[in-house]
């Protein structure tokens, strides 16, 4: 299987580089021509400069956000997997549990985040809980739908071989759910960063969320945007990691994609 060359990689990334570059250029031109004060809209150059100047403080506030995101996501993944297996083996549970989970998705983060901080304090715990709350349901739905997408022929075949329900789950339903799992993962991981920042915004000792709040209160939109840039970069890195994980755990997919 030929690996893409450097040239091919650049060609593939070119549209994205162009679109993002154009946006930043337009932003820079607008700020330069309109003479808008940096306290209202700083130029991208100024944001980059402030990001570099404050990199130590911003990094110190990024680490707790990464922690909250990853730990919350881990809790959510573990819970989603446990409940998906439970639901798959005991179907009536689905009707009992799904309404509860769906209601959990209707809770506005604006309302629930301050409450969670009020109940559990300023530590890491409430952030983990909020990230898990936001990402749990998409992951659960992805897994449950993935199990359901198993080819009936494959399950029937395993049954004729004498496979138990548990064996059929492990050998057929679980691997069939992998593409769905990764689709859910890609979506949830972007929610996870936003949820972590929002939880910090509602109250935290350190973190990108509280950093953004403080910068805003000090009339420093350049620092707000620098933190936003960091959170966007963080999301992109996590997203790329899930894509990489998907490639590694589903090698047959690359073969399928190469077929005409």
């Amino acid at each position, binding site marked *: 299987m030929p690996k893409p060359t450097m040239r091919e990689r650049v060609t593939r990334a070119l549209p994205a580089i162009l679109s993002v570059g154009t946006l930043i250029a337009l932003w820079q031109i607008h700020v330069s021509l309109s003479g808008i004060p940096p306290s209202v809209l700083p130029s991208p150059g100024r944001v980059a400069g402030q990001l570099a100047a404050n990199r130590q403080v911003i990094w110190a506030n990024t680490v707790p956000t990464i922690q909250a995101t990853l730990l919350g996501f881990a809790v959510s993944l573990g819970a989603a997997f446990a409940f998906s297996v439970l639901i798959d083996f005991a179907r009536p549970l689905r009707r009992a549990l799904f309404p509860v989970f769906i209601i959990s998705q209707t809770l506005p983060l604006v309302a629930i985040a301050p409450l969670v901080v009020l109940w559990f304090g300023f530590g890491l715990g409430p952030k983990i809980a909020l990230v898990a709350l936001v990402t749990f349901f998409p992951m659960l739905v992805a897994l449950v739908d993935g199990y359901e997408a198993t080819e009936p*022929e494959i399950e029937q075949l395993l049954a004729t071989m004498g496979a138990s329900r548990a064996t059929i789950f492990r050998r057929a339903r679980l691997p069939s759910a992998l593409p769905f799992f990764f689709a859910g993962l890609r979506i949830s991981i972007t929610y996870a960063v936003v949820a972590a920042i929002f939880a910090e915004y509602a109250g935290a000792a350190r973190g990108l969320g509280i950093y953004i709040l403080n910068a805003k209160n000090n009339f420093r939109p350049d620092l707000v945007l620098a933190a936003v840039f960091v959170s966007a970069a963080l999301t992109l890195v996590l997203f790329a990691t899930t894509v990489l994980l998907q490639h590694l755990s589903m090698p047959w997919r690359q073969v399928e994609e190469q077929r005409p």
Partner: protein
Amino acid sequence: MSLLDIRDAAVRLGGTAVLDGVSLHVERGEFVSILGPSGAGKSTLFRLMTGGLAPDRGEILVSGRPLAAGNRPFAFMPQRDALMPWRRIIDNVTLGLEVQGLPRREARARVAPLFAQFGLDGFERHWPAQLSGGMRQRAALLRTVVQQRPVMLLDEPFGALDALTRAGMQRWVEARWQDHRWTTLLVTHDVREAVSLSDRIYVLSRRPARVLAEFAVPLGRPRLAHGLPAAALALETEILNTLLDPQGDKDEMPRIRPDRPDRRATACR
């Protein structure tokens, strides 16, 4: 004593009679085919044998003893190959052995020598998506064979292949089965396929299915490599007449109204 003996099996599913007293038997080393219209209940017949479906009437005997739960004398090959896309070819082939509890390494060692015979030499480490339709079907057949069950059940195994690949597969099956004499029960829509491969053929009626006729195929082998003899073509015509002739079985025939010729396509599909 027959290896497989189905006696007067009757099944109703959801209030519809699907099988209405089907009797058939398969001897050791015999290749037996079941021909019948679509929806005649052939899949139900297979479910009786493999899927834990119990007949409302009649019985299924394997070597003279009733088929019991946990007793699995059948290796099944479904219509579509049902290869798992996430397993390499060799791991697809060993699936049945692994389900039986054989360790993966041992299972691989057992199936590896058969790859050459099945024309899959060198493709052990490939993914199913990398194989042609004919190769996938041979891999599925190999997965069935290595389970070493007394009877192989093949459910329209070549139905999804293009005509040329199918013809190649039929010749190949004929040669392999001549070597091994694996006991096989084949379900097919293809009368010529049944005549080419079988020792005996059962023709089923429309639902609710009964055995309309049983044909012995007393022809030498190989049949396909040198072109089918005239006797085989005559038999093919006779079987087709049994399947399609309205005089033979008024109630069971496709309901084609002369004033609605467009329905013929649906009815005969």
